[in-house]
C-alpha cells in the first residue's frame, strides 16, 4: 500500500499534476511540502548528490532506523532514540517533526517543530520522493541548498584567519555553546565553512530573520565572517 502511495505521489510530481487518484490516499501535498522544506535545508540536504551538513542528508530516510549513518555524529539523544527503536516511518518522522525535542530529548536539531498535521504530511510527501525505499527514484530533481544570497566569488574565496576567528568567536560563545550543545540556541560547531559564510551574509543583508543575528552579523566585515567560518568549521 505504501509503495502504491509513493508511486502515486511521484507520478503526480513528475507530471506536474496536483491531484490524487481516487484509489490512492496521498499523505500530503508535495509541492507545498517542497516550499516547507526551505525551513529544513539550511541544515539538511535532500536530492541528488546530497551530503551531510549540519544535519545528516535525508535521501532514503523512510523506514530507516534513527541514527544509522556511521559518518555522521548524532546527539546522544538520537543514539538513545535508536536504541529505543525509533524508526523513520511516517509516524516516527511526523512525531519528530511535530516536536523534535519532546520526541527525542537532547536532539541537536534546532527546529521548533510543525504543530499542524497537514504541514507535516505535506513535508513528508515531498521528502518521500527522495527515498529509495520503497521506490528508487534516480531522476529526482536536485534540491541542493539554494543560496540564500548572491555572494561574489571574491567574498566566497576569502581565506579566513582562524586565530582572528577564535577571538571573534568569543562573542558567539556567550550564546552558542563551544561544546556544540544545543539548549534553545543552535549549535554552530563544525558547520561547513561555505554554508557558515552564506548564512552570516544572509543575516547581514537581513535576508535571514533574527534580530540578534542580524545585528551581530551586521557589523562583521567579509574577512571577519571568513575568519569565524574557518574557526568554527575546524572546531570539534
Amino acid at each position: 500500500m505504501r509503495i502504491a502511495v509513493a508511486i502515486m505521489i511521484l507520478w503526480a510530481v513528475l507530471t506536474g499534476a496536483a491531484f490524487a487518484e481516487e484509489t490512492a490516499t496521498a499523505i500530503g501535498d508535495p509541492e507545498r511540502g517542497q516550499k516547507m522544506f526551505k525551513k529544513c535545508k539550511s541544515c539538511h540536504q535532500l536530492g541528488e548528490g546530497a551530503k551531510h551538513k549540519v544535519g545528516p542528508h535525508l535521501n532514503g530516510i523512510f523506514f530507516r532506523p534513527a541514527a544509522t549513518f556511521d559518518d555522521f555524529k548524532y546527539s546522544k539523544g538520537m543514539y538513545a532514540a535508536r536504541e529505543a527503536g525509533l524508526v523513520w516511518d511516517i509516524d516516527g518522522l511526523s512525531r519528530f517533526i511535530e516536536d523534535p525535542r519532546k520526541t527525542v530529548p537532547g536532539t541537536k536539531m534546532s527546529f521548533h517543530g510543525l504543530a499542524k498535521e497537514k504541514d507535516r504530511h505535506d513535508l513528508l510527501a515531498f521528502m518521500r520522493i527522495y527515498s529509495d525505499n520503497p521506490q528508487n527514484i534516480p531522476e529526482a530533481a536536485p534540491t541542493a541548498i539554494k543560496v540564500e544570497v548572491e555572494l561574489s566569488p571574491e567574498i566566497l574565496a576569502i581565506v579566513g584567519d582562524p586565530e582572528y576567528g577564535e577571538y571573534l568567536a568569543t562573542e558567539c560563545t556567550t550564546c552558542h555553546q563551544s561544546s556544540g550543545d544545543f539548549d534553545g540556541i543552535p549549535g554552530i560547531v563544525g558547520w561547513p565553512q561555505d554554508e557558515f559564510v552564506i548564512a552570516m551574509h544572509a543575516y547581514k543583508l537581513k535576508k535571514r530573520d533574527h534580530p540578534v543575528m542580524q545585528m551581530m552579523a551586521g557589523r562583521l566585515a567579509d574577512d571577519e565572517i571568513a575568519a569565524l567560518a574557518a574557526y568554527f568549521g575546524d572546531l570539534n
Partner: protein
Amino acid sequence: MTLNRRTFIRAGAAVAASLSAPMVLGAGKPRVVVVGGGAGGATAARYIAKGAKGAIDVTLVEPSRTYYTCFFSNLYIGGFRDIGSIAHSYGKLASDYGINVVHDWAIGIDRDAHTVSLAGGDTLAYDRLILSPGIDFVDGAVPGWDITSQNKMPHAYKAGSQTELLKAQIEAMPEGGTFAMVAPPNPYRCPPGPYERVSMVAHLLKQKNPTAKIIVADPKPKFSKMALFQEGWANHYDGMIDWIGSDFGGDAVEVNADEMTVSIDGEVTKVDACNVIPAMKAGKICEMAGITEGNWAPVNGHTMQSRIDENIHVLGDATNQGDMPKSGFSANSQAKVAAMAVRGALTGSKVFPAKFSNTCWSLINTDDGVKVGATYEATDEKIAKVDGFISQTGESGELRKQTYEESVGWYAGITSDMFG
C-alpha cells in the same frame, strides 16, 4: 609637564621597563589576579588561562564557593527555575583550566607594590589585576533603609540567600496583601531587572494570592522596555500592579523596616513584603583601590584598563565605560576584550580591535519573553553603541515563546562560557 632631561630619562626607563616586563618576569610566570568570580571575573580568568596555556599564573579571588547568578534569579522567584539551577561552582576553573581559585575577600590593594591583601591574611602579587566586583549600595540612598534592614526588606540584588528570603516573604503574604518595590535610580545593574521581577512576583501571586497588590515606587520617569512590560502587565496581571514613577511622587520614598511601611510622596502604606533596591556604586574594592571617580571606575574601552591605573582592568557593573548597560552579558563581553589585552601585554599574543555586545532577555509571563540588545565598539572616549534592536509590542505568542526559549539557551551558553 615640561620634558627636561631628568624626566626624559625617567620616562625612558619606565618605557624600557614596561617593554621588557615579560622578560623580567621570566624568572617566574606573569601573574594575573582576578577579584570577583561573576560574569566578568570568571570569564576573564577562564579566557586568560585557556589562551595562555600555562604561560600565565591566574588566581581568582571570590568569597563564595557557590555562585548564584543574578540573571535568572527572577525566574526562581516566579517559579520557573529552582534555586539549584542558578547555582554554579568553580571546580572546573580549577581542574580544567589550572586557575588558582581562592575563596576569600580582597580587602586591600597596594597599587605601588602590585599586591592584593586578603581577609584571611594572605597577600597576592600581580603583574595585572582584574577587578570585577559587581555592585555595592550607596549608603542612605533610600531613607529608612540600610544594610541592617536587608532581612526585613531584602534587596535581592545579589543573588542567593537574599533571593530565597524575598521569595519566602512573598509566599507568606496574607491573602490580598501588598508587595512593594522601591526601584533604583540610573545607572544600576540589569536595567530591566526590577521590572522583570515585578512580572515574576505578579506571576507568583496570581497563582497563590490573586487578590494581592503590587506597588512600585520608582525614582525614574521611565524604564527599560517600559512599553513591553506595561503591555504585558495589562495583558496578564490587569489591575494588580501600580507603578508610580517620579512624575507621580515615586522619587519621594521613605521606608520603615520595623513597622513594614512605605511612604510614597507622603502617603504611608502598610506592606506585607518589601523589596528595596537602593542606588548602586562600584563594588567597594574599587574605592579602596582608589580607582573610582564618583560612584564608578572609569575605564578605557580599548582594553578595559582603569583610566587611573593601567595595571588594573575593571569589568562589568563596577565600570563607567560609556554606552553598555550594566549586565552579566556586558561583563562577559568586556572580559574577553580584557583577557585578550592582558595576554597581549604579558605574553605578546596578538591583540585585535575590541568588539562588544549585549542582549538582555526578560520574562513577563509563561512563554512571554522579550529582549533588547546592541553592539558596541571602543572609541578613545568611551564604549560606543553601534547598532541595536528591541522586541516589539503586539508580537505573536509564538515569537515570544521562541524568545523565552532562546533566553534559556543563552543561560546555558553564558554559564558554560563563565565556568567551563
